[in-house]
């Protein structure tokens, strides 16, 4: 029965990839709209829509923050934008190079797509591999999707668009090149994947948890009123930062203690996850990935040169 269900799902998915995304923009602040994804993992059923995309309708036109996981998503996102404003899209800002945030770029190939230089470099190096991975996991919803590199580079500083002063921050904690955007007019902070909320953080490109913790401090000090995490629900309080800091610190000390005790990876990825993170989705899954990404560094800190 279960297999029949899965079969039917994949059958309907294959009918039309474009029709599968139900993107409903939600107004979250003046001129500002959120298109919220689920906090699940990538799957055939969600077409990779696990990510928060957003847009700002400025006086000059629409600024889009992240383009989603596929060409089809990008097209539906663009249609969803057109359903709430007649203004044209004039600018895309990419928070970082991960596939769920940039593979909708093709739907915006007529406007400048801006990112940090490091993001462009990472997408150049890893984009095709990541896209292949998405095809494997997400399947047909990826049809026609190709990597489209950023066409404009931005740096830390102020970007003024149509009455919205956007403060751009160049940070590193999640991927080595992470753009956070504070709209100084509305106080909306687009944190990208520097902030995961109620969803376990992913570490494949992090330069290290200490760098990430430092970025959390930087972001928290900004004069924000509303936080848009890369994954997870909106917040108007400090809770996303509190949770990120708590989780990063736990992860860091748990990995260090495991390495100090001489544990090998399998033992580490079985370790208990504190009860207080029970409301955070995918903790075990991301812990297993994190052990693969980061544990070798923690091991090396406990080892000495032994060769003679």
């Amino acid at each position, binding site marked *: 029965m279960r297999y029949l269900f899965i079969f039917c799902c994949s059958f309907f998915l294959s009918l039309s990839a474009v029709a599968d995304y139900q993107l409903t923009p939600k107004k979250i602040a003046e001129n500002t709209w959120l298109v919220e994804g689920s906090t699940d993992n990538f799957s055939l059923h969600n077409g990779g829509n696990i990510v928060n995309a957003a847009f700002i309708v400025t006086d000059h036109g629409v600024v889009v923050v992240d383009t989603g996981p596929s060409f089809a998503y990008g097209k539906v996102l663009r249609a969803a934008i057109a359903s709430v404003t007649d203004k044209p899209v004039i600018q895309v800002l990419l928070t970082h190079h991960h596939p769920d945030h940039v593979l909708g770029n093709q739907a915006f190939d007529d406007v400048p797509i801006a990112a940090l230089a490091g993001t462009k470099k990472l997408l150049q190096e890893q984009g095709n591999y990541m896209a292949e991975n998405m095809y494997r996991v997400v399947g047909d919803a990826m049809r026609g999707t190709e990597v489209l590199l950023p066409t404009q580079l931005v740096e830390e500083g102020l970007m003024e668009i149509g009455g919205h002063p956007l403060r751009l921050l160049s940070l590193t904690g999640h991927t080595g090149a992470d753009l956070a955007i504070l709209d100084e007019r509305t106080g909306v902070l687009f944190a990208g994947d520097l902030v995961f909320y109620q969803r376990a953080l992913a570490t494949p490109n992090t330069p290290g948890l200490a760098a990430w913790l430092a970025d959390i401090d930087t972001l928290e000090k900004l004069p924000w009123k509303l936080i848009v995490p890369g994954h997870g629900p909106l917040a108007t309080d400090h809770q996303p930062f509190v949770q990120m800091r708590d989780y990063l610190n736990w992860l860091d000390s748990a990995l260090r203690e495991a390495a100090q005790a*001489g544990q090998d990876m399998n033992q580490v990825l079985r370790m208990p996850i504190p009860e207080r993170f029970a409301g955070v989705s995918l903790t075990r899954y991301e812990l297993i990935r994190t052990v693969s990404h980061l544990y070798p560094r923690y091991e*090396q800190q406990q080892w000495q040169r*032994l060769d003679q």
Partner: protein
Amino acid sequence: MKQRMVCALVLSLVSCWANAVEGDPQPSVMWEYFHERLLNNAEFVFDEKVQVSVPPFAEDARQVPVEVDARALTGRVEKIMLWAELNPIPQVLNVYPSAELEKFLAVRIRVEQATPIRAAFLMDDGIWHVGSARIEAAGGGCTAPSVVRAQEGWEDHLGEILGARFNTGDNSRLRLSVSHPMDNGLVDSIPEFYLDQAELRDLSGAVLARLEIFSAISENPTITLGIKGQPETQLWLRDNNGNEFTAHIP
């Protein structure tokens, strides 16, 4: 290397009419083949006392951690064999342990696709005690380009050994990592170049364990061995080009 590839191809054809053996916790059409080829058709039992642990999926198919814990087995171990059934290079490690070794080891391996992983302990009763696990993998771990070779000056670090001994109650865990590309001959026409032998010795030179190493083991091999007591030991390694490396583990 080509021979092994052909071999793997023939194997997958053979598997079309082979059947999984009854009682196998990881039913696999390849079991009979490896039972014959590696265990010489000797008597065996699938034994839950041989716990093989792998992650539920391979985040990095080039570095898949495998843990074998058979401390629940009683008796003396003659030989341990570890293999990944559906790998182009299935064999991972053979260990000939002395009584000083604990029945525990961990190692990181490359996997090319989802595969059963087997650890077989030949005990002094003459029976192979077999533990199993299955790793899910999108693949490509055996044919992915070397990370080591991509680093400039990697040759200067060849044979560097990092590690430590950790006390685990009355016993110890030796954790060691050796800088070596472990080329398996499947990537970019780079010929096989891998560590193939190792011995763990006490300070007088007596062998505590002899290891036969295969190129299914990840580059910069990381290995963990359990050892009784808290002795100082030495590690000797050799690769197939005749380079020898030694380490002192305090």
